[in-house]
Protein backbone atom coordinates (compact mmCIF):
# COMPACT_ATOMS: atom_id res chain seq x y z
CA UNK A 1 0.00 0.00 0.00
CA UNK A 2 1.37 3.37 -1.07
CA UNK A 3 0.78 6.33 1.14
CA UNK A 4 1.51 10.06 1.18
CA UNK A 5 1.73 11.97 4.41
CA UNK A 6 1.27 15.72 4.17
CA UNK A 7 2.26 17.61 7.33
CA UNK A 8 -0.44 20.12 8.10
CA UNK A 9 -0.49 23.06 10.53
CA UNK A 10 -3.19 21.34 12.55
CA UNK A 11 -1.77 17.82 12.28
CA UNK A 12 -1.29 15.48 9.31
CA UNK A 13 -3.13 14.29 6.24
CA UNK A 14 -2.65 10.66 5.32
CA UNK A 15 -3.51 9.63 1.79
CA UNK A 16 -3.38 5.81 1.39
CA UNK A 17 -4.00 4.22 -1.95
CA UNK A 18 -5.35 0.78 -2.76
CA UNK A 19 -7.75 -1.36 -0.79
CA UNK A 20 -7.94 -0.98 2.99
CA UNK A 21 -8.77 -4.61 3.69
CA UNK A 22 -7.62 -7.50 5.90
CA UNK A 23 -4.66 -8.50 3.77
CA UNK A 24 -3.31 -5.01 3.10
CA UNK A 25 -4.08 -2.85 6.10
CA UNK A 26 -0.97 -3.58 8.22
CA UNK A 27 1.07 -0.86 6.49
CA UNK A 28 -1.63 1.78 7.10
CA UNK A 29 -2.04 0.55 10.69
CA UNK A 30 1.70 0.92 11.31
CA UNK A 31 1.74 4.41 9.79
CA UNK A 32 -1.25 5.53 11.90
CA UNK A 33 0.41 4.22 15.03
CA UNK A 34 3.63 6.14 14.21
CA UNK A 35 1.75 9.38 13.62
CA UNK A 36 -0.20 9.09 16.85
CA UNK A 37 3.00 8.21 18.74
CA UNK A 38 4.78 11.23 17.21
CA UNK A 39 2.19 13.46 18.87
CA UNK A 40 -0.15 14.23 15.97
CA UNK A 41 -3.52 15.25 17.36
CA UNK A 42 -5.59 16.19 14.35
CA UNK A 43 -5.36 13.46 11.75
CA UNK A 44 -7.11 13.51 8.39
CA UNK A 45 -7.39 10.41 6.22
CA UNK A 46 -7.94 11.26 2.57
CA UNK A 47 -9.65 8.30 0.85
CA UNK A 48 -9.44 9.70 -2.72
CA UNK A 49 -7.40 6.69 -3.82
CA UNK A 50 -9.26 3.99 -1.90
CA UNK A 51 -12.05 2.01 -3.57
CA UNK A 52 -12.56 -0.83 -1.12
CA UNK A 53 -12.66 -1.18 2.64
CA UNK A 54 -13.81 -4.16 4.72
CA UNK A 55 -14.46 -4.66 8.44
CA UNK A 56 -10.71 -4.82 9.09
CA UNK A 57 -10.42 -1.34 7.55
CA UNK A 58 -13.34 -0.05 9.62
CA UNK A 59 -11.68 -1.52 12.71
CA UNK A 60 -8.50 0.33 11.88
CA UNK A 61 -10.32 3.66 11.60
CA UNK A 62 -12.05 3.06 14.93
CA UNK A 63 -8.76 2.13 16.56
CA UNK A 64 -7.14 5.32 15.22
CA UNK A 65 -10.09 7.37 16.44
CA UNK A 66 -9.86 5.75 19.86
CA UNK A 67 -6.12 6.50 20.20
CA UNK A 68 -6.53 10.11 19.07
CA UNK A 69 -9.52 10.71 21.35
CA UNK A 70 -7.59 9.50 24.35
CA UNK A 71 -5.08 12.31 23.86
CA UNK A 72 -7.76 14.89 23.05
CA UNK A 73 -7.22 14.58 19.29
CA UNK A 74 -9.53 14.02 16.38
CA UNK A 75 -9.86 11.85 13.29
CA UNK A 76 -11.44 13.15 10.08
CA UNK A 77 -12.12 11.13 6.95
CA UNK A 78 -12.42 13.02 3.66
CA UNK A 79 -12.99 12.28 -0.03
CA UNK A 80 -14.76 8.94 0.56
CA UNK A 81 -16.34 7.41 -2.56
CA UNK A 82 -20.08 6.97 -2.72
CA UNK A 83 -19.71 3.25 -1.94
CA UNK A 84 -17.59 3.97 1.13
CA UNK A 85 -19.95 6.69 2.39
CA UNK A 86 -22.73 4.13 2.16
CA UNK A 87 -20.63 1.61 4.10
CA UNK A 88 -19.76 4.18 6.80
CA UNK A 89 -23.40 5.25 7.11
CA UNK A 90 -24.68 1.67 7.32
CA UNK A 91 -22.07 0.77 9.91
CA UNK A 92 -22.72 3.97 11.90
CA UNK A 93 -19.17 5.26 11.61
CA UNK A 94 -20.38 8.89 11.87
CA UNK A 95 -20.87 8.26 15.58
CA UNK A 96 -17.12 8.24 15.91
CA UNK A 97 -15.54 10.74 13.57
CA UNK A 98 -16.44 13.21 10.88
CA UNK A 99 -16.71 11.87 7.36
CA UNK A 100 -17.13 13.65 4.05
CA UNK A 101 -17.41 12.54 0.44
CA UNK A 102 -15.68 13.19 -2.85
Amino acid at each position, binding site marked *: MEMNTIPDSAGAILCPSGDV*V*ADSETELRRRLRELVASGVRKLTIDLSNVQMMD*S*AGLGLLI*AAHNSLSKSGGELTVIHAT*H*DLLELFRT*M*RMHQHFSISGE
Partner: protein
Amino acid sequence: MKPLRQELRLALPATLAAATDIVAEVKQRQMVPPGPPHSFCIELLVREAVTNAVVHGCNGTESGTVLCVVRRQQGRLFIWVEDNGPGFDWRARGSRSSDPAIPGGRGIEIFEKFATRHRFNAKGNGVALLYRFEGE
Protein backbone atom coordinates in the same frame (compact mmCIF):
# COMPACT_ATOMS: atom_id res chain seq x y z
CA MET B 1 -26.58 -11.93 -23.58
CA LYS B 2 -27.59 -12.63 -20.00
CA PRO B 3 -26.56 -16.11 -18.76
CA LEU B 4 -29.29 -18.18 -17.13
CA ARG B 5 -26.76 -19.33 -14.63
CA GLN B 6 -23.08 -19.02 -13.96
CA GLU B 7 -21.16 -20.84 -11.26
CA LEU B 8 -17.59 -20.73 -10.01
CA ARG B 9 -16.17 -23.12 -7.44
CA LEU B 10 -12.74 -22.37 -5.96
CA ALA B 11 -10.58 -23.87 -3.24
CA LEU B 12 -7.43 -22.30 -1.90
CA PRO B 13 -5.01 -22.27 1.01
CA ALA B 14 -6.20 -20.23 3.98
CA THR B 15 -4.05 -17.09 3.76
CA LEU B 16 -5.16 -13.49 4.15
CA ALA B 17 -4.62 -13.03 0.40
CA ALA B 18 -7.38 -15.57 -0.30
CA ALA B 19 -10.14 -12.96 -0.16
CA THR B 20 -8.39 -10.72 -2.67
CA ASP B 21 -7.67 -13.67 -4.97
CA ILE B 22 -11.26 -14.90 -4.93
CA VAL B 23 -12.65 -11.41 -5.55
CA ALA B 24 -10.30 -11.06 -8.54
CA GLU B 25 -11.48 -14.37 -10.04
CA VAL B 26 -15.14 -13.52 -9.56
CA LYS B 27 -14.74 -10.12 -11.23
CA GLN B 28 -12.54 -11.40 -14.05
CA ARG B 29 -15.22 -13.92 -14.93
CA GLN B 30 -17.85 -11.21 -14.98
CA MET B 31 -20.03 -12.80 -12.34
CA VAL B 32 -20.88 -9.49 -10.69
CA PRO B 33 -22.89 -6.62 -12.21
CA PRO B 34 -20.28 -3.89 -12.68
CA GLY B 35 -20.50 -0.53 -10.96
CA PRO B 36 -22.22 0.73 -7.81
CA PRO B 37 -23.72 -0.39 -5.63
CA HIS B 38 -23.73 -4.16 -6.34
CA SER B 39 -20.08 -4.67 -7.22
CA PHE B 40 -18.92 -3.08 -3.95
CA CYS B 41 -21.48 -4.87 -1.77
CA ILE B 42 -20.72 -8.28 -3.26
CA GLU B 43 -16.99 -7.79 -2.94
CA LEU B 44 -17.50 -6.75 0.69
CA LEU B 45 -19.58 -9.85 1.48
CA VAL B 46 -17.07 -12.20 -0.16
CA ARG B 47 -14.19 -10.54 1.67
CA GLU B 48 -15.88 -10.79 5.08
CA ALA B 49 -16.82 -14.43 4.64
CA VAL B 50 -13.42 -15.48 3.32
CA THR B 51 -11.47 -13.47 5.89
CA ASN B 52 -13.50 -15.04 8.71
CA ALA B 53 -12.86 -18.50 7.24
CA VAL B 54 -9.13 -17.78 7.14
CA VAL B 55 -8.76 -15.94 10.45
CA HIS B 56 -11.25 -17.72 12.69
CA GLY B 57 -11.80 -21.00 10.85
CA CYS B 58 -8.25 -21.88 9.91
CA ASN B 59 -6.41 -19.51 12.20
CA GLY B 60 -2.99 -20.00 10.69
CA THR B 61 -3.14 -23.80 10.49
CA GLU B 62 -0.98 -25.06 7.66
CA SER B 63 -3.66 -27.38 6.34
CA GLY B 64 -6.32 -24.67 6.34
CA THR B 65 -8.37 -24.58 3.16
CA VAL B 66 -11.18 -22.32 2.07
CA LEU B 67 -13.83 -23.44 -0.39
CA CYS B 68 -15.85 -20.75 -2.14
CA VAL B 69 -18.80 -21.22 -4.48
CA VAL B 70 -20.33 -18.26 -6.29
CA ARG B 71 -23.47 -18.77 -8.35
CA ARG B 72 -25.33 -16.12 -10.33
CA GLN B 73 -28.85 -16.89 -11.43
CA GLN B 74 -31.76 -14.68 -12.43
CA GLY B 75 -30.84 -11.54 -10.56
CA ARG B 76 -29.48 -13.35 -7.54
CA LEU B 77 -25.97 -14.07 -6.43
CA PHE B 78 -25.45 -17.00 -4.11
CA ILE B 79 -22.16 -17.22 -2.18
CA TRP B 80 -21.01 -20.20 -0.13
CA VAL B 81 -17.80 -20.02 1.90
CA GLU B 82 -16.60 -22.98 3.93
CA ASP B 83 -13.42 -23.68 5.88
CA ASN B 84 -12.07 -26.88 7.37
CA GLY B 85 -11.89 -25.43 10.88
CA PRO B 86 -13.92 -26.24 14.02
CA GLY B 87 -16.79 -23.82 13.32
CA PHE B 88 -18.43 -21.81 16.12
CA ASP B 89 -21.70 -21.49 17.95
CA TRP B 90 -23.40 -18.76 15.94
CA ARG B 91 -26.70 -19.48 17.73
CA ALA B 92 -25.21 -18.15 20.96
CA ARG B 93 -24.30 -14.92 19.23
CA GLY B 94 -27.87 -13.80 18.53
CA SER B 95 -28.45 -10.76 16.38
CA ARG B 96 -26.97 -7.63 17.86
CA SER B 97 -25.06 -4.68 16.57
CA SER B 98 -21.35 -4.31 17.19
CA ASP B 99 -20.02 -2.36 20.15
CA PRO B 100 -19.35 1.10 18.71
CA ALA B 101 -16.14 1.56 20.68
CA ILE B 102 -14.51 -1.74 19.78
CA PRO B 103 -12.61 -2.00 16.52
CA GLY B 104 -13.42 -5.66 15.75
CA GLY B 105 -16.60 -7.67 15.45
CA ARG B 106 -18.21 -6.15 12.38
CA GLY B 107 -18.05 -9.05 9.89
CA ILE B 108 -21.32 -10.77 10.74
CA GLU B 109 -23.00 -7.38 11.10
CA ILE B 110 -21.98 -6.73 7.49
CA PHE B 111 -23.71 -10.01 6.48
CA GLU B 112 -26.84 -8.81 8.29
CA LYS B 113 -26.80 -5.43 6.63
CA PHE B 114 -25.50 -6.08 3.12
CA ALA B 115 -26.79 -9.55 2.24
CA THR B 116 -30.42 -10.25 1.40
CA ARG B 117 -30.13 -13.35 3.60
CA HIS B 118 -27.33 -15.22 5.31
CA ARG B 119 -27.24 -18.56 7.06
CA PHE B 120 -24.50 -20.54 8.80
CA ASN B 121 -24.40 -24.31 8.59
CA ALA B 122 -24.96 -26.28 11.79
CA LYS B 123 -21.28 -26.55 12.66
CA GLY B 124 -20.56 -22.89 11.92
CA ASN B 125 -17.70 -23.52 9.49
CA GLY B 126 -19.75 -22.56 6.44
CA VAL B 127 -21.90 -19.58 5.57
CA ALA B 128 -24.38 -19.10 2.72
CA LEU B 129 -25.04 -15.56 1.57
CA LEU B 130 -27.79 -14.52 -0.81
CA TYR B 131 -27.56 -11.18 -2.59
CA ARG B 132 -30.40 -9.98 -4.79
CA PHE B 133 -29.83 -7.27 -7.41
CA GLU B 134 -32.61 -4.77 -7.89
CA GLY B 135 -32.37 -4.37 -11.64
CA GLU B 136 -32.53 -8.00 -12.71
